[in-house]
């Protein structure tokens, strides 16, 4: 693993200039989670529009470059998609979105925090419960 691989331009850019950062005045979904190991925090707010589409999505948070860039990139991907799309997102999609950085087991959780927050919020809105075992990372 090399830090040049992990901290690609894309991640540094979204860390320093996070897209969709902030809060919504009107929202239907509000989901927040932390990574107790690192103290990373992500909260997402979503306004659901016609046809169960993600009309607007914002996030706030603090934490490492990987957690914040990942959450921000995910909001860009999610915007305009149907809620059902969120159910289909996998951790591999998130890694791909980040440019497949070579993350160690302890940093995988940072990358997946945004997805966990998004899925937890959307599943709850749709009346089901998100089983987060696939974002728990690989035990070291």
């Amino acid at each position, binding site marked *: 693993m090399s*830090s040049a691989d992990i*901290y690609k331009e894309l991640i*540094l850019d979204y860390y320093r200039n996070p897209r969709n950062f902030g809060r919504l005045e009107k929202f239907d979904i509000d989901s927040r989670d932390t990574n107790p190991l*690192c*103290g*990373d925090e992500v909260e997402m707010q979503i306004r659901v529009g016609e046809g169960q589409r993600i009309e607007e999505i914002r996030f706030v948070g*603090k*934490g*490492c*470059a990987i957690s914040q860039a990942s959450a921000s990139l995910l909001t860009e991907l999610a915007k305009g998609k149907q809620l059902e799309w969120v159910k289909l997102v996998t951790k591999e999609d998130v890694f791909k979105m980040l440019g497949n950085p070579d993350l160690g087991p302890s940093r995988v959780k940072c990358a997946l925090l945004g997805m966990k927050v998004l899925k937890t919020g959307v599943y709850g809105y749709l009346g089901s419960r998100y089983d987060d075992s696939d974002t728990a990372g690989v035990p070291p």
Partner: protein
Amino acid sequence: MLKSEVLDIKKVRSDFPILKRMVHGKRLVYLDNAATTQKPRSVIDALVDYYSRYNSNVHRSVHALGEEATVAYEESRAKTARFVGANPGDLVFVRGTTEAINLVRFAWGEQNVRKGDLLVTTLMEHHSNIVPWQLLAKARGAVLKFVGLQADGTLDMESFESLLKESPVLVAVTHCSNVLGTINDVAGICSKARRAGAMTLVDGAQSVPHMPVDVGAIGSDFYVFSGHKMLGPTGIGALAARKGILDAMEPFQAGGEMIKEVFLDHSTWNDVPHKFEAGTVNIADAIGLGAAVDYLTALGMGKVREHEARLIEYAVETLSDLKGFVLYGPRDAEKKGGVISFNFADVHPHDLATILDEEGIAIRSGHHCAQPLMNWLNVSATSRASFHVYNSYDDVDALKDGLRKAGTVFKV
């Protein structure tokens, strides 16, 4: 700049087998000693020797192995007690600092804390010296209040004095902050707390491994520490109590070893300290802790402290040259244990730890089990480099080079 070495670092380093290993092809620079320290060969050998030569239960078997194990276990207790100026009869072996604090919470707190009583701790505590008191306060209807901090990361003694006027029943304070490195005047705090009628508990997890400690001179009612942060094995630590206090307390855990006589309707308790060591004790690790105490005693704790103070002085000075380096806590090595917490530009501590890891440098990043302190500092996390006897000026230089590299990667 003082760069002369107080300890024979080359010799010391050769005593620690793990320091020979490479990490990602680089020399291991281990700067995570506040989390746990590495173990010298003599400690590892003591464990192997016990298991391969005289493994047996203690205090019950009259055969040769049982006698040898009992003698070694009790010798270790005596050494550990002497090391901190305590009486062996008042030193209870526990799993670590956390268990020692929880022992006090249950065995003292449940009996002595009443509705409306005040418990006092500080904003710079590790979670292990906050959460047990939150739970005790909840269980007994008591109130928990915190001594504040001054801008330089030292305790706000005015807020302490004003809390004393509210007649707390307990003052629980750390001897040395695991984040800021601040060394507190625990002797002064204990004496004032005692005059105000409070019991005192001092968390020695970050002091006993790094400086001479004399619990008699400090005057605490309870002094607690962990073995694994002082070159000993994990799973062993100690509670050193003021004489007589343990006798008056109810047991913590109940079972074998802690009883004198058991009848169907009641039991009587074994003598202190055994009254607080229910079940088969952690024999091997207690013996290992004795070996760690021997090792540190041979080096001399005064020298250990001097060595670390010079490293801290050097680290604070040299790292402060880096643009974007922010230090938390006192700058003065006199007021600081072997810990420096910092942030570097806008590089998050976890990203920094990942980049340093590639260089073989182990630091800790995160909230250091001190979230109230992180909130007070108004940061979500810090990076922490912490030193011990085998660290050298070269390690500090390696850390500085690592920070420069992080600066390049993050284009700061």
